[in-house]
């Protein structure tokens, strides 16, 4: 089993590294896919393992996006003048400045949302069920509305992130951002995988199954909930910072705090793949992204209609997701012992 896993991981890693060279036309799409998988994986820590269905992880994503770009600009040039000038560039980053700024920006984009998550987590993780869901939805939208009113980060007209320096043209830009997002994905996956093999995951599951009993067993549930959320925020912020550089333009409600797109996507991807599994979000995000790209191009303009229908269909008819479906079909593969007679009886009952 372990050998099989190693082969699988090596194959994925090799594919991941060589993918932009095999499919050079899809570099941007692949980078977006990596970001989507990161978001789905981190959402799954809350929604899948902890049972706290959040719409608010978009907050950290958007925060990371704004922070990374602001730091990248602010380190070398006055931020206000940069946003004032909008599309017409008065300042140009040298390559060294660009990469330095990006590195510092990503660190800030990962750490500040983590602190924010700790602070607001203490306040709102005491809410449960749908109150938590609506509260986080409100947080996400409020963040979008408020950042749309702040002048220094572009307000309503948006914020153009520093363009990629002239060191190899469009190809180099695509490869750089792909590599960045792929590294983020690998880091996230390894971190999540490491978490899922510890007691921490069992505690999260205990909170999901019955929080009162978990507390009665002596688990400081609040502490673990906050830590879980901080881990999510860390990687969400990182993904946001990368995505900001990739898109090249930040708008408060359409790109950064985009509850209608990204905020729903991450929930949908995790549910489509299967909540509460390690591989579920990865599979879900991949399937969703392929489906989305195919659909979005064929039904240009109708994508939100398709998205709405898709949400309803998945939520109502397919709440267990792909992993849940596989699990029901091949329980042996998941290490479950199956009583053949019992199973047949159940099938007949159905």
């Amino acid at each position, binding site marked *: 089993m372990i050998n099989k896993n190693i082969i699988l991981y090596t194959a994925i890693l090799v594919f991941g590294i060589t993918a932009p060279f095999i499919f050079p036309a899809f570099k941007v799409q692949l980078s977006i896919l990596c970001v989507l998988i990161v978001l789905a994986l981190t959402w799954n820590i809350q929604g899948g393992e902890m049972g706290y269905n959040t719409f608010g992880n978009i907050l950290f994503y958007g925060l990371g996006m704004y922070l990374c770009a602001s730091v990248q600009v602010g380190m070398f040039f006055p931020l206000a003048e940069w946003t004032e000038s909008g599309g017409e560039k008065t300042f140009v980053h040298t390559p060294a400045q660009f990469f330095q700024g990006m590195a510092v920006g990503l660190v800030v984009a990962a750490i500040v949302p983590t602190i924010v998550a700790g602070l607001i987590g203490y306040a709102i993780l005491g809410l449960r069920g749908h109150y938590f*869901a609506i509260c986080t939805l409100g*947080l996400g939208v409020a963040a979008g509305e408020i950042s*749309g*009113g702040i002048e220094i980060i572009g307000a309503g007209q948006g914020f153009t992130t520093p363009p990629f320096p002239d060191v190899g043209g469009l190809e180099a830009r695509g490869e750089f951002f792909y590599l960045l997002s792929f590294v983020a994905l690998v880091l996230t996956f390894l971190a999540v995988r490491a978490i899922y093999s510890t007691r921490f995951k069992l505690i999260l599951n205990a909170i999901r199954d019955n929080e009162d009993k978990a507390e009665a067993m002596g688990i400081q549930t609040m502490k673990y909930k906050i830590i879980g959320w901080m881990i999510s925020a860390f990687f969400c912020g990182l993904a946001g910072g990368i995505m900001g550089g990739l898109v090249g333009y930040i708008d408060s409600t359409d790109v950064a705090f985009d509850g209608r797109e990204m905020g729903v996507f991450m929930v949908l991807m995790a549910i489509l793949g299967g909540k509460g599994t390690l591989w579920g979000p990865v599979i879900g995000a991949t399937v969703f992204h392929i489906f989305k790209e195919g659909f979005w191009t064929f039904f240009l*303009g109708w994508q939100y*209609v398709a998205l709405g229908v898709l949400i309803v269909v998945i939520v*109502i008819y397919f709440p267990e997701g792909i992993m849940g479906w596989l699990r029901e079909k091949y329980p042996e593969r998941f290490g479950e012992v199956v009583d053949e007679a019992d199973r047949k009886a159940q099938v007949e009952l159905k």
Partner: protein
Amino acid sequence: MDFMVFQYPMISVQACLDGILLGILFALIAYGMALQWGVMNIINIAQGDLVILGGYIAYFMYLYGIHPAWGVIVAPIIMFFVGVGLYKLVINKVVDRDLFISILATFGISILFMQLMNFAFGADVVLANSGYGTTFLFDSAVVLPNSKIFSAFISILFAICLVIYMKKSKLGRAIRATAQNSRAAKILGVDTEKVYAATFGINAALCGVAGALISITFTIHPYMGLPYTIRSFMIVIVAGLGNLPGVALSGMGLGVFEEFADYILGTEFRIGAVFLLLVLILVYRRFKLSRKREYLK
């Protein structure tokens, strides 16, 4: 930040009156929310989009030369059937399930409605001109459009009619019985499926009335639905389910808060202030309850 509102008392009076008239409208939407939440135990994120759809019905009547105030009668009738259709298609599959499923499913409906309305009616901000003129109070220091007074009056009228209907009619009794205990109601011969459909229809009809009034007094836009959902959710959690005077009062309170936020913070932060207020209210209640080792249910 602008504190003019406190330096000139007449502006405060204006804000208060505007807020109260606006809040009555919010309370009407929140009443529908409380109704379906109490009876069917679902939270409908598409509530605001139903409101906007009702608004477009009135707007279209205005475009075709009919006075938009008639929308107050036409919109609920159409919206009732929209609501029942929506129930038969989607909502009946989420009624008995986890609340998050209903939130997510109605979120999907909300996105769907938003985009369909965007296609059908265009992405412009529109309003139906009622031509009711304005009322001047206190030596013209306070200006109130008559349409706002009209809309508040109609809202109160509909709310009173609905309360009487719920108390007296057979269906109203069935709805209240189902809200108390759906299983017992089923045993005693109430067709709960029908009751649910009717509840959702009534909720949609209320949204239709509110939407028609909003299209007369304010503006409508396909993407403006979500704030109405959040406002009604907020009003319901402040007032509690089934507390009608509470719903009316907290609706007016929210309206006044919004007007003051508009004056003090500026219009661009108005929606943000509403959403932040929701978060603050929830956090406040969570800390208050956690002292007693309880949580919001």
